[in-house]
Each structure stands twice: as C-alpha cells, then as structure tokens.
C-alpha cells in the first residue's frame, strides 16, 4: 500500500519535472548565450554554464544597443513596449467594463443588436482588418505615434463578454439596494460593480498585457522611426540573415529582457488570481 502511494506521488512529479525541463531548457540556453562574448558563441563551442560577460552584455543591450541593425538601445524599446502593452491592457479593460455595463444594466433600443455586433467583432482580429485599419490610422496622421499603435487594438469582444458574464451573476438586489441608497448608475458602477470585478479585471489585465506586449505585425506596420520600435520588433531586426553579423549575445540578452515584464506581471498578479478563485465575493 505504502509503496503504491509513493509511486502515485512520484510519477506526476516526474512527468512535471520532465515537462519543465523541456520548456525551461531553451530559456536557460538563451540566458547562457547572453553571458558569453560573440566569438565563443559563433565558433559553436559555447559551454552550458554562464560566462563572464553578463554585466557587459546587458549594459550594452539596454543602454547602447546594436549599432548595425536596430540603432536603438533596448531600454528605449522596452519602454515603448511597456507603454503600448499598458495602454492596450488598460484601454481594453476600461472599454469592456463600460460596454458590458451598458449591455447588462440598461434597456436601450437595439440593445441585443449592439451586443451581437460586439460579439461578431470576435471574428475580426487585427490581421483580418489590417488594410482598412492601416488606411484609417495613416489618414488620421497617427503613424509613428502611440495612439496609432494602441487605439486600433483596444476594442475587445472577449473582455466585454467576460465582464458581461460576470455582471449577470451580480444579484439584482445589489442594484436595488444602491438605488435606495441614492447611488445613480455611474456611482453604482464605480462604487460597487468595479470593486466586485477586481479579480476578473486582474485576470484580464494579465492576458491583455501579454497580448499587447507580444504584438508584432501591427507595430511593424505602424512604426517606421527607430525610437518607436518595440522590443519584439527589435529582436527580429537583430537577427540578421548573414550569421556572422548577428551579435548573438545581444540578441539573446534582448530575448531574456523581453520575457521579463510578462513574467513579472504574471507573478505579481498571481495572488489576486488565487484570491479570485478561492473566495467568492458575493
């Protein structure tokens, strides 16, 4: 019996450890590569332990950048990516909260029609509507601006649906109690509905921040100036096709840096996630 237990305990852990190793190993190799010099990497003899150039490589990446391909310090790219990801995540959450509020709590003409139109935009991601969207952004002189970079990506049917679903579980009596307590619709929204949605907001923030951070196609189209590059584009540009020109240690450092903010967001938001799962605030 005891033996059997132990086997049942050990086996899942073994599977998990193997899984983690498979996922983590490339990341580890990238990290190791970012701590050696270009010569060691390019001769194909890179050891699998961290090298002596950690500080030097990261300093160059963040503050100086590669002179040949991106002509821009990665620190600036990270800032651009951060602004873009934050604008997209916060914008999406704000718009979705408001539109879910409208659809659930107000009886206006064509309410269901509005809901279905929002629903249908699920079928129209940026890639599908890229040409007209680009045309509009260009006509509005929003190329190479953060507005052009973020606004077209803000509308979100997914988040609207999620919040709608959540709002429908909020008891009607809370609305009625608010009415009797003299809270108007917007006061109810800010005083009651938003605080109650905080765990869903956190979940949405994580998902949408990573979505924004990982954007590639849209920034590639919209940004032409060096100082508007995002880090994802930066990585791509650093990897030049002729192998000799690629400064692999810097590209790898950039890749590691690009991974950090999403990881930080997930780790920081994890508490709220678990809180949202464990306790029901209703």
């Amino acid at each position: 019996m005891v033996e059997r237990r132990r086997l049942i305990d050990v086996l899942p852990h073994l599977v998990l450890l193997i899984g983690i190793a498979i996922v983590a190993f490339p990341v580890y190799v990238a990290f190791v590569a970012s701590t050696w010099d270009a010569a060691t990497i390019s001769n194909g003899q890179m050891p699998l332990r961290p090298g002596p150039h950690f500080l030097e490589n990261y300093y160059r990446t963040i503050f100086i950048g590669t002179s040949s391909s991106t002509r821009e310090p990665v620190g600036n790219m990270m800032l651009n990516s951060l602004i873009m990801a934050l604008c997209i995540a916060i914008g999406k959450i704000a718009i979705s909260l408001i539109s879910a509020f409208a659809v659930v709590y107000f009886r206006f003409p064509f309410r269901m029609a509005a809901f279905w139109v929002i629903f249908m935009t699920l079928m129209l991601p940026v890639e599908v509507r890229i040409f007209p969207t680009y045309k509009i952004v260009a006509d509005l002189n929003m190329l190479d601006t953060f507005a052009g970079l973020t606004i077209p990506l803000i509308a979100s049917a997914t988040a609207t649906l999620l919040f709608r679903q959540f709002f429908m579980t909020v008891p009607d009596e809370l609305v009625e109690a608010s009415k009797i307590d003299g809270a108007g619709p917007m006061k109810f929204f800010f005083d009651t509905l938003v605080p109650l949605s905080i765990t869903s907001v956190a979940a949405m923030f994580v998902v949408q921040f990573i979505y924004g951070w990982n954007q590639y196609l849209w920034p590639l189209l919209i940004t032409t100036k060096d100082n508007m590059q995002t880090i994802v584009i930066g990585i791509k540009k650093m990897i030049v096709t002729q192998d000799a020109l690629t400064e692999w240690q810097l590209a790898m450092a950039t890749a590691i840096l690009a991974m950090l903010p999403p990881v930080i967001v997930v780790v920081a938001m994890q508490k709220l996630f678990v809180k949202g799962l464990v306790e029901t605030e209703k």
Partner: protein
Amino acid sequence: MSDVRLDAVRKVYPGGVEAVKGVSLEIADGQFCVLVGPSGCGKSTLLRMVAGLETISGGTCAIDGKVVNEIEPAERDIAMVFQNYALYPHMSVYDNMAYGLRNRGTPKDEIDARVKEAARILEVEPFLARKPKALSGGQRQRVAMGRAIVRKPKVFLFDEPLSNLDAKLRIQMRVEIKKLQRALKTTSIYVTHDQLEAMTLADQLVVMNKGQVEQAGAPLDLYEKPQTIFVAGFIGAPPMNLVTVPEAGLPGLTLIERPAGPVVLGIRPEHLHEQPMGPDTLTVEIVVSAVEAVGAETYLYGALHGHGPELIVRVPGRATHAPGQRIRACAEASQLHFFNPQTGRRID
C-alpha cells in the same frame, strides 16, 4: 406623520401578467403592516412598487400624503431590507451602513454618530470593520437592519427578511424587529409567508391572494372573524377544518342551528372539545386515523363518520387515543363559521 396610502394599485408585468389587481390599503403612521399570502400572490410586487423598484401600472401610492408614483426610490425616503440581505460584499459593515448617508451628503461626524448608534442598538459593534462574508447569517441580517435604520426613513420595507435564518434565530429576530419598530415608531410594511410571523408582528394584517386583498385588519380579528374561506384556511395552524355541508346535512355531523341552503362550515381544531360544555350546537363523530403529539397538545386526525371529510381535533396535553378509535367532539355556536360555497364569503 408618515402614513402610506395605496389606492387601487395595479401591476401588469411586460408580457401581460397582472400580478397586483387593484389593491387599496391604508397604513397609518407608525403602524406595522404585514402582507401575507401564498407564493406568487403579489406581495413582493406590491412592496417593490411602494419602494419604487417597480413602476406602478395603475392607481396611486402616496407616502406622507404625497403621491410618489413618479418619484425615484432614493427620493421616497424609504429603506428596504432584502431577503438575501443585499449587503455590499466589498465594503466593511461600517461602510455598508454609512454608504446611503454619504450619498446624501450627510456630514461626516453625524454619519459616524448614527452608524455607531445603530451598531449599538443592533449589537454589531464588534464587527464594524469586518466584511459581510465574515459574518453569520443572523449578524448579516442585523447589519441589513442597521443599514435601514441609520437613514431614519419614513417607511421601512421588509421582504421576507428572516426566511434565510434557522427556526430559533428567526423567532429571536422576530421579537427584536418588533421591539425595534416599537421603539423607533417607524411605519413598516413587512412581507412574509410565515403566518405565525404575520400574526405576532402585525398591527394590521393583510391577507393577499392572487393579486388581491382578501382581508385586512387586526390579526385577532382575522383569526376570529375570517371574511372568506381563503382567510379562514390561511390563518391559524393547524388550519381551520372546512366542511361542505349540503342542505340535507352529513352523516356523523349534528348541527342544531345553521343558515339555510348548502354552506361551508368552518371550525378550528382548538375549538373542538370532547366533553360537552353547555349549549353545544355542533357535534361530530370521528374515526381517528392518526395521532400527532407535540408535547403541550395532541392533534387527532380522522374522517367524519369513518369515511367523510378529514377533520383535525386538538386535545390538550398527552392524549391516550389510538388510531381506529371512534370519538365525539363538540363546539359552541360562537366558534362556528359559515361561508357561502359559491362566493366564498362569510355568512353572519
């Protein structure tokens, strides 16, 4: 002065359901009015129309002499206690009680004084900093009451506030609500389907059925002189025995004095006794089929003459009766109720 006057109030829900069919009621200042009736009879709907949470389809509702049909709930100066308490889950007990006052721009120190006072009365002082989910059902109920009383409204509205509590707590809270209302002298409308709650709380008891008022009055008046068969069967536990007696009479049932024509005879189980006591006009012969002892009294269930309509007889204390036994029970003329079987109305 803050009386509530309903005049031919109707409610038609979208889709055509007529939930309230012309209710007229007068609730005097400081009166405790209880609405009671079977599920779906429109009690909540009526209460919610007074609160302003449902629009009024016809008739008028006036609070303190002022018609409030078109006035927002917040401006009606009412407070409502909901069945599921409807406390704001993310706010502390203190904030739950203070929220309505803050929205009205009450000065901070007055809010503080009123909340502390309410917390003291309702004995929730130790929990002021807690969130509602860290409270028991009874404590939440008190907080919901506190939220109502800090506002010092003209009218309290309660929609089955005790039905989520266990039996013992329900009785305790019932007594407290009554005491509180007596102390505050605030006009109150209270919805319940528990008729014991209704009898003990009400100054004015309103029995509703199918969207209409069957009878309104003092609880004991309704008990002693029910005006319809419905009220007779609804008020009292166990319910009044109701037997349809044809012109020719029934075997096993002797009636000395009775109105002409077929009637529905009503007699409460507690008014049937085994020993003849003076001028009894009703005598029934019952074959006992079940004996229910609840301690202080015993209920005998049995069929009239062995196979007629089912009757209940209450005998005090422990009874020695056994199923199958044939007994004889009598009642005085003053305890009998007669109703017209067609209209359902009382015959005096």
